[in-house]
């Protein structure tokens, strides 16, 4: 067992345990917090597989951005300790069906894949190749991200009503 193997095993354990907590912890706050472990473990796996840029991007986008937004939303809700987000067995049916479908798909892909062992190539930096791919073959897909951003800004402008409070602060200006 080499250092890399130990690291990968650790990432699998951490990610699996954290994902289990996220799915089954009755308190939504702890579920959100255990997402940290799961997201960091995925970043670690990316790193172990040689995708250095992806690992850092995983940290900066998911842990630094999305998780913080989730925590904001959860912490701002009322009576957070009393909330239980599983009430009654009825709510299990659809998630279980969806999970079975996803698991079936993943299992099929895993079993069909050709798992012949290749010699591990030396580590090669990925950032430059990824950059060229994003402005070359995948330029169209990349452009959609800009469309997404425009959509978000549009949504903010439409959703913002001119309330009394807003008018008050707008009139007062920045002085």
């Amino acid at each position, binding site marked *: *067992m*080499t*250092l890399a193997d*130990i*690291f990968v095993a650790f990432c699998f354990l951490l990610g699996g345990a954290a994902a289990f907590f996220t799915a089954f912890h009755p308190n939504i706050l702890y579920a959100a*917090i255990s997402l*940290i472990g799961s997201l960091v473990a995925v970043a670690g796996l990316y790193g172990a597989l040689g995708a*250095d*840029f992806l690992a*850092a*991007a995983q*940290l*900066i986008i998911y*842990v*630094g*951005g999305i*998780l*913080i937004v989730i*925590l*904001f939303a959860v*912490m701002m809700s009322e009576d957070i300790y009393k909330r239980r987000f599983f009430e009654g067995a009825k709510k299990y049916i659809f998630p279980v069906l969806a999970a079975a479908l996803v698991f079936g798909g993943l299992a099929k892909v895993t079993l069909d894949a050709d798992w012949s062992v290749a010699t591990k190539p030396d580590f090669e*930096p*990925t*950032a430059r190749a990824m950059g060229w791919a994003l402005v070359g073959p995948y330029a169209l897909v990349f452009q959609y991200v800009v469309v997404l951003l425009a959509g978000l800004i549009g949504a903010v402008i439409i959703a913002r009503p001119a309330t009394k409070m807003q008018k008050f602060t707008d009139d007062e200006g*920045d002085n």
Partner: protein
Amino acid sequence: MSLAEFLSGINYFIAHLFGTGLPMAVFSILSAVIVLLLFAMPVGGFCTYLERKVAADFQERIGPNRVGPLGLLQFFSDGIKMFLKEDSISKNADRWIYNFAPSLVMAGSFGAFAAVPFSAYMIGADLDIGIFYAMALGSLVSLGVLLGAWSSDNKWSLIGGMRGAAQIVSYEIPLGIAVLSVITICGSMNMHTLVAQQAWPTAGGEGHFWNVFHNPFMIINFFIYFTAALAECNRTPFDLPEAESELVSGFNTEFSGMRFGLYALSEFADVILFACIATAIFLGGWHVPFFNLQSINLGLSIGELDLSPLIQSVLMIGVFLFKVSVLVFVVMWLRWTLPRLRVDQLMNLCWKYLIPISFFNLIGVAIWTWAFSGRSMLQLLGQLLGVY
């Protein structure tokens, strides 16, 4: 035999001694911890002393002067005091998260030091994505602040933590764009390459001198980076998360003993880290004007071991740390000069001024790089005057 070969020989010896399995993993983790304790802890501690002395100078007081000569050992006694203090937890605090949060902040600010290039031969991890890695680990800090604040069951803490998270998430954007313009110029995220390109320009050389003087946009970009970094470290005039006149002590109100110590220490570590990154990507790292330190060769050697990389390294580290300490001093100077911003002013400054300006600058830098095929002002001037 050069120094690098000598060091890799040591590495080989250690790997031979410990194998490559679990003992090696334990050894690597321990050595990283020891390096951190030897570098970051004393430097962070010394910064607390320095800050009190600078504050005292600004207010015409003497400052700490009892412990050791000139009060130099003050931070040492402060550290011992923090270790011995009772580690109190308020009754309704969320114990798990409360205990976990300071370590997140610590991991975020100390882990990023691995990518700081102190000299051409001394860098913890020469990653291809060095600068991006340092910024990614920085995102753990905001998480630690938010969780610590929420778990301590105190409304001042919660308000402080919310402000902290909102502030850090917002200011990460101008910070990231300022860094992006540097990457545009150098075409690399590797810290070593970034610094190496900032050498004094010579006839056939790659260097284009410090990035901050690369073109007019970069000078503005440096100030945007510096302002955003101040906000990221929660330093005055952006210290709203721990505004002591309104929020007691902000997000760390309930923390005591060494847990508070971790927060305080990683705040200073954050300041030093941002000063290090600013030095490396804007102020030319170990490079000095008119001269390339890497060309020094005194011809000294012990047996087969060439000593010149060692001598160069010492000079480079000296230059690097000098620039870093100037920046850290400016940060402290600002603290005792500027008043704190209001929350709405803070958000206005970020979203209405810094972000639009930084986007404009990024486009400007891109156009400059394209128009002059990456040459800096100094290189163009040199070409005009026919120096090389």
